[in-house]
């Protein structure tokens, strides 16, 4: 690739790229981590072979992209410009797609998406209810670019926001634009981005740093992975604009090593941007110089916290420090450092291109723009959804998510990861904005939404998060280190049928102390899952304590497996499956031996007649 020396050269290059892209039939294959796990790489190989054999490789483009968001239907592809959508495809379907759809415009019925609500097949992506209700300002770009090819990003207008900032805006004007847009941090804190940039610009000390936080540690949230894997140049462009506004010289992308594809794609993206002269010294012949490096995280949840992340970046143990002096003044290497999350950076180019008022026209009074949520758990349409801030939980869960999976009734949604809380179905009218969810005892957080149904035990969920947080607490401050362990002891007792009302009161009291006295946000928000489940699901705690029962049938010490004689067909599947010799058969009558039963549930999985009962 030739290094571009000036803005004019870049613009000419961009026009050429855009012309090249026009009206070529394109097969867009979703191939993020989910897609690859579903076998998308084999499908890509099959396509390459088929297109080559039929001498179509020059007429039809195969674009291997990041995740499109509809993870439940992976592996999936879209054929453009027709917008035909095929899902759950297998390599053996490829020849038929090429000969039928691509050559003869025939739609293959069995590969179409079937809408569970209307029971109808949907041929075009734009008509699928899951996509229809969304506003995919950030996520929608994933489909348009091959993340490993900078030309794609440039062809769709990529890096023109950087050009606009560099050529027609003063750094202060860029900051003002971001402030006016109302963009707030997408990583969980919700701090106004423009204000943060301004603090960092005003801070004394050189060099200054700009960091992208891609240490997405919240279990159940994966939008940052998807954006970094699928469209790394949007983040790089956002960082370049941020660096120009702040006056920063160096940048880092701090990314989880558990996301190998995101690490790989961001490396390639940085290298290509460097080769084209979009990163480095005197970018496009201007005075602006900036470099970006990648740092791989070591798998510590706490490193999502700004001061811990910066310690980790310096090769140290990821422990947070008190924030009386902000990291915008003294961050990485004690120098001014501006940290924003992946999704925040990815929003920046569009704000500069379209103007602050475009962004501010979406969302609520205090929470502007769109936000990506990871809709997971017991939901029909698992995936990534991008919606304007302020839409209700009900709209997301039912209209986009399609309601509960397996026809079970949805009981709650957990938002905000381990720092968030569980909200009951009766609060699904709440709008998703930073304030409303926090008031209800949860938070938007990084955007994880784990849907729970009647088979989910809320005490068990609280226990899960406590265990997670104990495991991930860095151990520096006492309230978090000791307090959480004491809380877990009480919750363990409750799930084992040894809880008392007094202990439950002590649990609430300890939780409040941990929230008040901990050093960083991990400890301060750690009690949220416990407090919110006690607040909204107290009867479940009481059932464990008073009746020694787990209503959802999850807590092992409180449940009992048995075989329902009226449903049992004596097929012996459970007997063969049980690894613990816990099933006794006498004269074709099957029974579970309680002493041997480990409550592993294998017999229940094996039984086709739902004859294994849990009580």
């Amino acid at each position, binding site marked *: 690739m030739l290094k571009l020396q000036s803005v004019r050269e870049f613009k000419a290059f961009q026009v050429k790229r855009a012309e090249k892209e026009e009206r070529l039939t394109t097969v867009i294959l979703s191939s993020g*981590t*989910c897609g690859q796990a579903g076998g998308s790489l084999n499908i890509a190989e099959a396509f390459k072979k088929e297109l080559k054999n039929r001498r179509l490789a020059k007429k039809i483009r195969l674009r291997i992209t990041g995740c499109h968001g509809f993870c439940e239907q992976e592996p999936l592809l879209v054929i453009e410009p027709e917008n035909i959508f095929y899902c759950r495809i297998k390599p053996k379907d490829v020849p038929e797609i090429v000969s039928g759809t691509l050559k003869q415009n025939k739609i293959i019925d069995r590969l179409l998406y079937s809408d569970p609500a209307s029971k109808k097949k949907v041929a075009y992506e734009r008509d699928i209810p899951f996509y229809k209700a969304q506003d995919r300002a950030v996520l929608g770009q994933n489909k348009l670019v091959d993340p490993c090819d900078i030309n794609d990003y440039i062809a769709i207008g990529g890096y023109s926001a950087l050009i606009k900032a560099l050529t027609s805006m003063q750094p202060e004007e860029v900051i003002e634009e971001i402030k006016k847009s109302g963009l707030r941090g997408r990583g969980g804190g919700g701090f106004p981005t423009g204000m943060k940039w301004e603090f960092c610009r005003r801070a004394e000390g050189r060099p200054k740093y700009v960091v992208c936080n891609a240490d997405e540690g919240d279990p159940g949230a994966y939008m940052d992975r998807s954006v970094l894997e699928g469209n790394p140049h949007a983040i790089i462009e956002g960082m370049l604009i941020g660096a120009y506004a702040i006056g920063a010289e160096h940048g880092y992308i701090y990314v989880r090593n558990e*996301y190998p594809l995101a690490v790989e794609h961001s490396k390639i993206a940085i290298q290509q941007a460097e080769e084209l002269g979009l990163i480095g010294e005197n970018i496009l012949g201007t005075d602006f110089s900036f470099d970006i490096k990648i740092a791989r*995280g*070591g798998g510590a949840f706490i490193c999502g916290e700004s001061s811990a992340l910066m310690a980790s970046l310096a090769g140290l143990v990821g422990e947070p420090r008190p924030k009386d002096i902000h990291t915008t003044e003294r961050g990485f290497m004690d120098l001014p450092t501006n940290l924003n999350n992946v999704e925040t950076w990815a929003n920046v180019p569009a704000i500069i291109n379209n103007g602050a008022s475009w962004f501010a026209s979406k969302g609520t009074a205090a929470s502007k723009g769109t936000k990506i949520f990871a809709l*997971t758990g017991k939901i029909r349409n*698992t995936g990534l959804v991008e919606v304007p801030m302020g839409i209700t939980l009900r709209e997301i869960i039912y209209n986009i998510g399609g309601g509960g999976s397996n026809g079970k009734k949805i009981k709650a949604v957990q938002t905000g990861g381990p720092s968030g809380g569980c909200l009951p179905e009766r609060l699904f009218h709440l709008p998703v904005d930073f304030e409303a969810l926090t008031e209800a005892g949860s938070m938007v957080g990084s955007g994880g939404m784990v849907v729970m149904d009647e088979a989910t035990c809320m005490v068990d969920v609280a226990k899960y998060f406590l265990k997670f947080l104990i495991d991930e607490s860095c151990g520096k401050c006492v309230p978090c280190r000791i307090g959480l362990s004491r809380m877990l002891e009480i919750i363990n007792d409750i799930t084992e049928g040894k809880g008392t009302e007094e202990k439950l009161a002590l649990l609430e009291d300890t939780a409040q102390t941990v929230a008040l006295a901990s050093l960083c946000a991990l400890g301060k928000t750690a009690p949220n899952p416990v407090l919110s489940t006690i607040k909204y699901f107290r009867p479940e705690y009481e059932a464990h304590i008073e009746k020694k029962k787990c209503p959802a049938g999850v807590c092992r010490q409180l449940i009992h497996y048995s075989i329902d004689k009226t449903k049992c067909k004596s097929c012996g599947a459970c007997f063969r499956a049980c690894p613990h010799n816990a099933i006794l058969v006498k004269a074709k009558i099957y029974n579970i031996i309680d002493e041997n039963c480990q409550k592993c549930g294998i017999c229940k999985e094996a039984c086709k007649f739902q004859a294994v009962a849990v009580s």
Partner: protein
Amino acid sequence: MLKLNALLRDREGKSCELIEVLQDVQSAYNYLPEQVLRAVSAKLEVPLIEVFRVANFYKAFTLKPRGKHLLTVCMGTACHVRGAPKFLDEVLSQLNVSPGETTGDGEFTVETVNCLGACALGPIVVLDGKYYDHMTTGKLRNLIQAARKKSPKKRKKIKSNAQTTIC
């Protein structure tokens, strides 16, 4: 030690490269051998105690050799509500190990991870770099038995060869 020299090239005295170096050592040796950590300490000019502190703090690092097969069980929230703990307990009792440990015969290392970010496919396990989705206790038992019979396949995991540098 040849591998190590390549890893440490251009990183002498750069203490802030410690985590990146340990990442590279982990992927080259599959664990952090003590001898290597001593060399890292000397080259990067980081006290050995600090090297061990960092190696212990981050989950990505292991101080003991891993088994022939690496089984990673995702314990993210989405996998949890879909039943991951049930089959984790089962696999641990079947192999008689705790998370992070290796079986006595050196065949399997079982690790847990807090989220693989592939929540739609949950519960999910990764065996030798290959993702297995929508797992159940029964399926996992079969998977382990099948792996026992076979010699380890080449890891399919996407590996990054290029070094990254900080400072």
